[in-house]
């Protein structure tokens, strides 16, 4: 079972590098922003996989907090781009 976790983790990290191309070369702010959002949602899964791989499933707490931080950051940047201020 550990091999399956390791293989899925490596595939997800390869996928993160594919999304990093869009962050570096993407035209405009919006494309970079949606790529960063995608990387954030993949990082949650990588954290859970690392927790189960090393036998410490309490990494789930860290991934819950990371999900909330990513959501709030995306909404704040979207509101800033829409209105010009966060208010």
């Amino acid at each position: 079972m550990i091999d399956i976790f390791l293989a899925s983790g490596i595939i997800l990290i390869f996928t993160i590098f594919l999304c990093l191309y869009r962050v570096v070369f993407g035209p405009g702010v919006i494309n970079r922003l949606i790529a960063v959002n995608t990387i954030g949602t993949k990082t949650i899964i990588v954290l859970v996989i690392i927790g189960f791989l090393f036998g410490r499933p309490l990494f789930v707490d860290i991934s819950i907090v990371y999900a909330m931080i990513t959501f709030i950051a995306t909404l704040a940047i979207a509101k800033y781009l829409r209105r010009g201020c966060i208010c």
Partner: protein
Amino acid sequence: MVVGAFGLLRLPDFYTRAHASGKCDTLGEGLILIGFMLYEGATLISLKLLLLIIFIFISSPTAVHALVNVAYARGVRPWRKGEERQ
């Protein structure tokens, strides 16, 4: 999630990229976490994984919808057939 990343890399427009990445990420993440719930069994960690699944099914489409709304308000034009890739 691999298909979503390739869609983010290859599709010609912002709206199609948002379509690919948003749906593939939400559903793929839910399925992987349901697999971890079945592996773990009925414990407290399984309950936390269920809370994470519910939070992501609410929050991820909301974030993508906010970004698409910002793009439409800033005047990003949709891609039409025969035009150059953006």
